[in-house]
C-alpha cells in the first residue's frame, strides 16, 4: 500500500546506508524473523505428527473424537465446537488488524477499543480450549501418556475410530494393539501441539493487556506512533495463522 509505493522509486543508494533498504524498523523486522523461527518450530511439531500418522496403519477419526459441544450432552455434533473456536480466533484477528489500522492514524480511543475486543476474543478462545481439554481428558480418558496399557479393554479406544471403514475394522480384528498405539500417539500430539498453540495465545493475551494499559496511559501517544501495536499484531496474526494449520491437520484431515 501507501508505505510501499512511497519509496519504490529506484534510488541509486538503496544499500548505501543512512536508511533501511527494507523500509521496516529494526523491531518489526526482528518480529518477522522471530515468527519465521517459530513457524519452523510449529512446522517441526506438525510434520512429526504427520510422520507418525503416516506410519500408523490406523488413526483416530476426527469426526468421531471431536463431536461434543458444551451443554449438549451426548449429541453427535462433529466439528461444530472447533468451528466456533476458529471463528473466535479469526474474529480476534480482525479486531487486532483494526487496532493496528487505528494506530496508523493515532486514534487512541479506537486502538484501546479494538485491543479490548482482541483480548476478549483471546480469552474466549482459551476458555473453549480449556473446555475441550477437560472434556477429552475427563470423558474420553485421553491426555499425555494415556493408552499405554496393553490390557486396556478394546471398547475404550474403539470409540475414537471410524469402525464403518472396513480396513479399520480389520485392524481391530487382527491387531488391536496397533490401534492402541495410534490412540496413545494421537493424544500425545494433540495435547502437545494445541498446548503449544494455547501457550502462544496466552502470551499474546498478556502482551495485548500490557499494550492496552500503555495505550490508555498515553505511552504510545507520547512516543508519537503505535508501532508496538503493529509488532504484537504480527505475533497475534501468526498465532491465528498457526491455528489455521492445526485446524486442518487435527480436525479436518
Amino acid at each position, binding site marked *: 500500500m501507501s508505505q510501499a509505493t512511497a519509496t519504490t522509486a529506484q534510488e541509486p543508494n538503496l544499500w548505501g546506508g543512512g536508511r533501511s533498504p527494507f523500509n521496516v524498523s529494526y523491531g518489526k523486522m526482528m518480529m518477522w524473523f522471530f515468527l519465521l523461527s517459530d513457524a519452523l518450530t510449529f512446522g517441526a511439531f506438525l510434520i512429526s505428527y504427520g510422520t507418525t500418522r503416516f506410519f500408523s496403519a490406523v488413526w483416530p477419526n476426527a469426526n468421531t473424537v471431536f463431536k461434543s459441544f458444551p451443554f449438549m450432552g451426548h449429541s453427535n455434533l462433529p466439528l461444530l465446537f472447533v468451528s466456533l473456536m476458529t471463528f473466535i480466533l479469526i474474529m480476534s484477528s480482525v479486531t487486532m488488524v483494526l487496532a493496528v489500522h487505528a494506530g496508523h492514524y493515532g486514534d487512541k480511543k479506537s486502538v484501546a477499543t479494538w485491543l479490548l475486543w482482541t483480548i476478549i476474543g483471546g480469552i474466549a478462545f482459551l476458555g473453549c480450549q480449556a473446555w475441550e481439554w477437560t472434556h477429552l481428558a475427563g470423558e474420553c480418558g485421553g491426555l499425555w501418556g494415556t493408552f499405554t496399557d496393553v490390557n486396556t479393554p478394546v471398547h475404550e479406544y474403539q470409540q475414537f475410530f471410524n469402525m464403518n471403514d472396513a480396513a479399520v475394522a480389520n485392524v481391530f480384528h487382527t491387531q488391536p494393539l496397533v490401534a492402541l498405539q495410534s490412540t496413545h500417539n494421537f493424544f500425545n500430539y494433540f495435547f502437545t501441539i494445541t498446548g503449544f498453540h494455547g501457550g502462544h495465545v496466552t502470551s499474546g493475551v498478556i502482551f495485548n493487556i500490557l499494550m492496552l494499559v500503555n495505550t490508555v496511559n498515553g505511552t504510545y501517544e507520547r*512516543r508519537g506512533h503505535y*508501532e508496538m501495536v503493529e509488532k504484537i499484531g504480527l505475533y497475534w496474526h501468526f498465532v491465528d495463522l498457526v491455528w489455521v494449520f492445526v485446524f*486442518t491437520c487435527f480436525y479436518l484431515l
Partner: protein
Amino acid sequence: MSSHANNDNVQALYEGDQSKLYSGVMSHHTDVESTESKTQIKRIWKVFWILLAVTLVEVFIGMQLSTSMPKALLAFIFLGLTLFKAGYIVAIFMHLGDEKKNFMITVLIPLVLFVWFIIAFLADGSFWLHMNDTSKARDHGTTQIAK
C-alpha cells in the same frame, strides 16, 4: 524522579528517530474518515468474510463429504484451502503484501524448506509402515504355504 522523566524522553527520541528513518507506515496519517482509511477497513472486512466462507466450506466438506471422497483428493482440497487462507492472513492482516518486495522474499524464502521437510518425512513415515506391515508379510507367507 527527574531521571525517570529523562529516560522517557530519550526513548521517545530514539523511537521517534526510527519512525523518521524507516517507515512509511508511521508517516502521519491524520484523517481516519479519509477514503484511504475507509478502503483499508473495507479490505480488512472483505478478507474476514473470505476466511469465514472458506472455513465453512472446509467444515462442510469435513462433515458431509469426507467419507465419500478419495482420501488423497480430500487432503489436496484441504491443504489447498488452508494455504489460500494462510496467504490472505499473511498478505493482508500481517501487511506483508504491503512491504517492499525484497523484504517479502527474505521472509518467505526460508519457508521453502518446508516443501523438502514435508516430502522427506512423510515419505519416510509411509516407508516405515510398509517395512513393518506384518499383516501383508503374513498373508504372503500363508499363500506360499498353500501353494
